[in-house]
């Protein structure tokens, strides 16, 4: 009874809620399904939400054909071809047998449809598999959890999950078997990160002792509408009592993640099926259009215009031809099928349509399909390249965008991240400074030891410093032997003596959270002093000396300790925690509200973790708020970039010795920081702050408000963090080394030789960045460096170096700049004109302002390398966007971390390094590389090849399709749209007979060998300047095609003039020799002949003759209106046929051979080139191979030393241009 009552009131509530829902439409309300009769029932407020069945297939059996066709018809080319095929069904303008005219369209459509069908079927299979996985859903009737398929789970259902199970939907965590009410999940399927993440039970359910009982649950959850932001979840839960609790992303388990380390947990489904965050994020491969394709589309447009002009020409010709006969209708001018006599004008209009059908090949339909095929092959080859494989990580290059391979060959600007991209991102703790004393990590044992005998305040600083290193992070502890098993978090067993009360009884536990037997208000200092006096220096010596491995193994306690493994989101954190452990200050456990640290002699200390203010790129720091177990003080530990921390340090205003000392420490630390940076170390400052209870209470109130806010929570939390992180006390600073990756300087040098501008955009500090830049040869020691550091826009304006730069070319700005008033001061330096530009984040913000960006670019362009330090992710992407849009250049962005994602997305080609920092960059990228040095081969070799292959293939396609023999025939058939080539040949010529060789060449041809390309990076400029496919080349190709079609038409024409030859006996040799000409033309364009080229050409010729012979022998009456019976057989007996087949290709291709290979260099290029060409080649090479031509042109343009491959292909001559 009572239950029903509850149900009724609930219904009322629901109605209210629904109204609200309709009004707001900004939130989703989730009730428990247990309260309602049927999950789909009328009264169930959850019934509108999508269920958990996923369907990623695009089609059903019924909808496949219409839907797939509809999709395919979004392509202009397909529409065009269907239009033409349909035009053929119009009696007045049909040119071919209508059914046959459908063949190419049907062929292309069905190839695509079969591909789509196959993909869809695979999706269907995997969907089915996923939908039928099992999960435990609480049943209303049976009052227990029942096995159900995934697809049966619905929003509002309670789901029980066990260890290693995969989450079927987005679930709000309500209960966990873990004593700390935690669940560990692995999110590898979502973001590729393998470290465990903790999720916790919604705070109002924390206190439940016994198992969670779904039937008692009657709260209402209100949360956001489904969205694709993995890192965000906001909402609140309203209990019966009216109490409200905030919900965070920490409470939400996302679909696709795996439960680890947790025996069992229960949650309520919030988002199901396609509304889960994982599915919303799954938006398929990205589509980019490459530069080459854009250019190609322009020329396809030109083809259309040429087609229309030709059709118009023919139509007018036909009109005139008709007109000249006047009323005397000639016997061969057949009436239209209706028997109507057509006026010249009308029949010209009809003819126009007919000609569109006849000339349809002018628009290369198969081009689009062929390009797709070739690109897939190119991707395959890039993927298979052993040089792009990294043994160490067993990872390949991944091509995530399939259709921009050729863009790799046209890059002009590279924007690189530093950390993890140029460097390893494997952090090694090198040195630190604590309280103004510097310790190097190698000799640390001694130095720290010595310091211990100094002032006690130093000592506290050191301890605090290590504690901060240990706890101010989000590192998760686990043991390598039992992976994914939580270690050292078991308060009950390890410290049963201290906490006798049940750990579940949190409220009481919080009061006595200390694990030490001295929970009294003893201060750390006194405690340590005591220790110091008692244990003497020996104890402390032992305390803070690194533990040698053998002793570690000897001690059982240490052994356990040594087995701990830390999983951190960033390698810096891990490095710091490992470093701290080396000094026996080790992190042994981390819970959402507690961190356990083992200190020498002090044993395990449990800090109550009050808040963690995570790292973000704007604040550039993170903080933890803990209650110190010894002092019970609220302490804030902050770790962050030195530039921000230093500003937040407050010095005692008093001028006493303490203040002085503080100032001195600050000054010293700053000095050390500069030194570290100069050594290329990454620096972090560690600071601390002790809060009074009152201060904390005030702050806490604001913070809680911020946390529970639904709108603008991020902003409020940010503000809250800013309020907390003030008046810090500096503890020290660390220097972490990040080694350069292998081969980075060489790669940068060769990319630069290839004419690529390399900009480094990093979040690191200026000194570190410059140092790394020197280390990787981005900056040379004798480069002049312009440093732009400005406080305000006005200053930036005044310091605008472009003016002075133009005036006297000596703009070497001071380096390093004096901190307070930076701007610029000129110093005369060397006469080297190589410039490097260094700009920091703040100045960059001014530089990116629309009023100044032109000037900034002007300066940046004249510099050899540009270094942007301290830049935020947004700034990175803005820089890329600015360069891309303003300079109209091709940009490539390469990075490895989440902070590079925006830049990778903005650039024309985004490259991700699958490194240490998770997979976000890789997920956003078009290509993912294992190492930075792979970029060299990817761009210089594969990029060049892909570009040159595709460019040549596209031009060849235009050429092939523009050999319009039929056009010339119109002059001899009264412009009637007649064709001497059999319709079969006409239709299958491009589709089959001449299709394969060009695909092979487009996939395999290598204009220059891989070795030469890497040895001569200058050859890359060929692609940068689009040398292979310039607009004029299209027209040259067209003229060539025009000429060749003239030859192919008129040689047979004159050879058969005034003879008894019939239409097809004349047309078939023309087809044959056009095929030969086209294939030999391809042969001339092919630079490397492998057996596959031979096979494909032989196959093409063989196919043509086989088809022709079979076709001409098969049926004498079937192929109306043409009747080619026995034509080919008869032709093959005629010597004239062979004579034609020999002379026509020679005559057609002679000009190309001579002009393309010999003369073009001499006539069309500069005189300088001519001289050079003759100097270089006259001895062995009169006729320049394509490769050498570039070599020379590159040589002339860049004034560099150029190797010229001679006849043997070996680089053996060096010529200075």
């Amino acid at each position: 009874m009572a239950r029903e009552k509850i149900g009724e009131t609930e219904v009322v509530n629901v109605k209210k809620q629904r109204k609200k829902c309709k009004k707001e439409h900004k939130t989703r309300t989730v009730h428990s399904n247990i309260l309602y009769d049927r999950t789909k029932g009328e009264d169930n407020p959850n019934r509108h939400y999508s269920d958990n069945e996923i369907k990623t297939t695009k089609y059903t059996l019924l909808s496949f054909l219409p839907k797939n066709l509809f999709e395919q018809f979004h392509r202009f080319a397909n529409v065009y071809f269907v239009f033409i095929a349909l035009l053929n069904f119009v009696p007045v303008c049909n040119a071919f047998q209508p059914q046959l005219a459908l063949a190419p369209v049907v062929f292309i459509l069905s190839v695509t449809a079969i591909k789509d069908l196959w993909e869809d079927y695979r999706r269907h299979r995997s969907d089915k598999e996923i939908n039928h996985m099992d999960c435990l859903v609480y049943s209303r009737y049976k009052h227990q959890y029942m096995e159900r398929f995934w697809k049966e789970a619905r929003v509002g259902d309670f789901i029980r999950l066990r260890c290693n199970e995969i989450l079927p939907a987005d679930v709000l965590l309500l209960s966990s078997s873990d004593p700390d009410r935690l669940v560990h999940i692995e999110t590898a399927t979502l973001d590729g990160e393998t470290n465990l993440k903790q999720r916790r039970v919604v705070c109002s359910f924390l206190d439940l002792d016994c198992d969670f009982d779904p039937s008692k649950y009657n709260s209402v959850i209100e949360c956001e509408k489904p969205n694709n932001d993995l890192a965000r979840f906001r909402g609140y839960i309203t209990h019966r009592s009216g109490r409200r609790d905030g919900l965070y992303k920490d409470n939400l388990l996302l679909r696709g993640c795996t439960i680890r380390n947790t025996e069992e947990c229960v949650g309520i489904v919030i988002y199901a099926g396609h509304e889960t965050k994982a599915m919303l994020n799954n938006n398929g491969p990205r589509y980019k259009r490459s530069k080459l394709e854009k250019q190609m589309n322009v020329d396809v447009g030109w083809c259309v215009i040429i087609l229309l002009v030709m059709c118009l020409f023919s139509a007018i010709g036909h009109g005139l031809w008709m007109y000249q006969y006047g009323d005397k209708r000639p016997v061969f001018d057949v009436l239209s099928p209706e028997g109507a006599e057509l006026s010249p004008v009308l029949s010209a209009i009809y003819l126009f349509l007919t000609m569109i059908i006849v000339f349809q090949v002018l628009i290369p339909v198969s081009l689009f399909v062929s390009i797709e095929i070739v690109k897939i092959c190119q991707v395959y080859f890039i993927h298979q390249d052993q040089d792009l494989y990294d043994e160490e990580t067993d990872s390949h290059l991944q091509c995530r965008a399939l259709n921009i391979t050729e863009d790799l060959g046209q890059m002009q600007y590279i924007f690189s991240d530093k950390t993890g991209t140029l460097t390893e991102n494997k952090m090694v703790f090198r040195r630190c400074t604590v309280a103004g004393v510097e310790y190097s990590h190698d000799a640390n044992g001694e130095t720290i030891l010595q310091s211990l005998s100094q002032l006690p305040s130093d000592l506290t600083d050191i301890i605090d410093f290590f504690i901060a290193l240990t706890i101010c992070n989000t590192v998760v502890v686990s043991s390598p032997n039992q992976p994914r098993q939580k270690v050292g978090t078991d308060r009950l067993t390890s410290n049963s003596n201290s906490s006798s009360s049940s750990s579940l009884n949190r409220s009481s536990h919080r009061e006595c959270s200390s694990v030490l037997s001295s929970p009294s208000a003893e201060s750390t200092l006194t405690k340590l002093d005591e220790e110091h006096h008692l244990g003497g220096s020996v104890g402390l010596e032992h305390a803070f000396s690194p533990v040698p491995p053998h002793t570690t193994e000897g001690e059982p306690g240490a052994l356990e300790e040594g087995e701990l493994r830390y999983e951190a989101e960033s390698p810096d954190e891990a490095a710091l925690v490992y470093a701290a452990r080396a000094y026996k200050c080790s992190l042994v456990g981390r819970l959402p509200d507690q961190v356990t640290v083992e200190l020498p002699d002090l044993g395990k200390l449990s800090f109550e973790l009050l808040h963690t203010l995570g790292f973000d790129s704007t604040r550039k720091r993170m903080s933890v708020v803990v209650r110190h177990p010894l002092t019970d003080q609220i302490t804030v530990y902050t770790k962050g970039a030195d530039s921000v921390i230093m500003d937040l340090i407050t010095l005692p205003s008093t001028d006493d010795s303490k203040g002085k000392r503080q100032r001195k420490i600050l000054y010293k630390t700053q000095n050390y920081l500069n030194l570290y940076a100069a050594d290329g170390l990454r620096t972090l400052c560690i600071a601390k702050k002790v809060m009074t209870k009152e201060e904390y209470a005030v702050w806490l109130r604001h913070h809680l408000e911020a946390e529970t806010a639904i709108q603008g929570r991020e902003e409020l939390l940010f503000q809250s963090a800013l309020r907390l992180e003030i008046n810090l006390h500096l503890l020290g600073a660390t220097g972490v080394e990040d080694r350069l990756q292998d081969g980075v300087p060489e790669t940068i040098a060769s990319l630069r030789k290839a004419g690529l501008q390399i900009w480094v955009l990093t979040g690191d500090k200026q000194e570190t960045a410059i140092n790394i830049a020197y280390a990787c040869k981005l900056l040379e020691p004798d480069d002049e460096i312009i440093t732009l550091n400005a406080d305000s826009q006005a200053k930036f304006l005044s310091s605008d170096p472009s003016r002075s730069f133009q005036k006297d070319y000596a703009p070497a700005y001071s380096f390093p700049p004096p901190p307070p008033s930076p701007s610029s001061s000129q110093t005369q330096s060397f006469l080297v004109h190589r410039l490097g530009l260094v700009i920091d984040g703040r100045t960059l913000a001014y530089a990116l302002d629309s009023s100044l960006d032109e000037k900034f670019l002007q300066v940046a362009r004249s510099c050899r390398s540009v270094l942007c330090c301290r830049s935020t992710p947004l700034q990175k992407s803005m820089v890329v966007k600015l360069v891309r849009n303003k300079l109209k250049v091709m940009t490539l962005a390469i990075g490895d971390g989440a902070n590079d994602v925006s830049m990778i997305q903005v650039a024309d080609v985004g490259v991700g390094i699958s490194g240490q920092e998770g997979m976000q960059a890789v997920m956003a990228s078009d290509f993912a590389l294992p190492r930075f040095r792979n970029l060299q081969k990817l761009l210089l070799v594969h990029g060049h090849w892909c570009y040159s292959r595709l460019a040549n293939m596209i031009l060849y396609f235009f050429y092939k399709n523009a050999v319009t023999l039929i056009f010339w025939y119109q002059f001899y058939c009264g412009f009637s749209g007649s064709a001497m080539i059999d319709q079969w040949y006409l239709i299958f010529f491009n589709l089959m007979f001449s299709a394969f060789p060009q695909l092979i060449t487009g996939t395999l041809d290598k204009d220059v060998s891989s070795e030469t390309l890497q040895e001569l990076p200058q050859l890359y400029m060929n692609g940068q300047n689009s040398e292979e496919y310039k607009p004029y080349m299209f027209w040259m190709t067209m003229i060539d095609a025009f000429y060749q079609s003239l030859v192919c038409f008129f040689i047979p024409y004159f050879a058969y003039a005034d003879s008894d030859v019939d239409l097809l006996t004349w047309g078939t040799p023309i087809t044959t020799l056009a095929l030969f000409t086209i294939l030999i033309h391809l042969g001339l364009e092919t630079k490397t002949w492998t057996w596959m080229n031979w096979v494909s050409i032989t196959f093409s010729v063989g196919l043509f003759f086989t088809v022709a012979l079979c076709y001409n022998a098969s049926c004498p009456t079937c192929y109306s209106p043409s009747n080619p019976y026995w034509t080919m057989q008869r032709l093959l007996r005629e010597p004239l046929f062979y004579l034609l087949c020999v002379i026509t290709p020679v005559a057609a291709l002679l000009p190309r051979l001579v002009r393309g290979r010999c003369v073009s260099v001499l006539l069309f290029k500069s005189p300088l080139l001519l001289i050079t060409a003759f100097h270089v080649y006259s001895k062995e090479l009169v006729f320049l191979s394509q490769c050498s031509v570039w070599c020379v042109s590159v040589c002339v343009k860049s004034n560099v030393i150029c190797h010229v491959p001679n006849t043997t292909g070996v680089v053996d001559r060096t010529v200075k241009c």
Partner: protein
Amino acid sequence: MMASNYNAKEEDGHQPAAIGHGGAGTVKNKKPDNTAFKQQRLPAWQPILTAGTVLPAFFVIGLIFIPIGIGLFVTSNNIKELEIDYTGGDMSSPCYNCSQSYSWNSTKPCTCSVPFSLDQPFESNVFMYYGLSNFYQNHRRYVKSRDDSQLNGDKASLKSPSKECEPYRTSDEKPIAPCGAIANSLFNDTLELYYIDPNGSRTAIPLVKKGIAWWTDKHVKFRNPGGNDNLTVVFQGTSKPVNWRKSVYELDPSDPDNNGFINEDFIVWMRTAALPTFRKLYRIIHKKPNMTPTLPLGQYILEVTYNYPVRSFEGRKRMILSTISWMGGKNPFLGIAYITVGSVCFFLGIVLLIIHHKYGNRNHSADIPS
């Protein structure tokens, strides 16, 4: 000490990939195969055009093409050919009167005789052609205007010809056989040749009318419906093409093997010409068994039964007598083309050789400038 510690961690760091996915077993090595194909190292021939390869190629092309061209040219010139235009557009022409008639169906046949003389005797077989100019047999709608099944002897098509034949498909409600515009415009002049003996008497030259069509056309493509016997019955219920004077079964009543659809003149006409100026084989004058030339030199008369009107399209009609060589009729073009292309290649070879020598020598003095 620290370093070793750190390394240990590093190694550990890689373990979870192996162990973490619980029993995934050995990690698959994803290293690509080192095959020549996958690494794009297939053995390849790189044709680099150098003086050493291109110059000889040019010369060789030249040296091959020029003799072929000369051979073709000579062969073509040895062919004897005589062309007589009997259109009769001129007032002076003997066929002027006949040519004035426009009609296809004038009841009275018009004849005219055109005298001509041979300057040299024609040896071996002589082929007699009729030639038409400005006749667009290749017009798109004209070419299609036929029914191959009907011509192949299909009885169903005989009774209801294909729609392609429109508007020459039916006449007076009866199907036309053979239907279509091509058949309708069949060339229907009759040409006869007479040799005028020096003594003034006319000798008819025997013109063979069989063997002028393709064998496959005559025996495979074209067939009379129901065999060759009694065509009158077979073609009953069909109508003759509107421009024809007699029905299809009356084309050659003397020879059942040359009558109806398999009439060779008809078959030849049905093979539509490629170009608007064309000739079609009309008759063959076989070589005489003795050593006398097939057509000795002297005076001849061409007797024309002038039925075919060409004035409407400014056409010309010709009678051509020609001998034939292995490469077909008289056409000097191919020979000239070969000679031209060969010469161009040769010339280019010489020019490039000169350039090669000139600059090659100059380069010797200034080899590799500093």
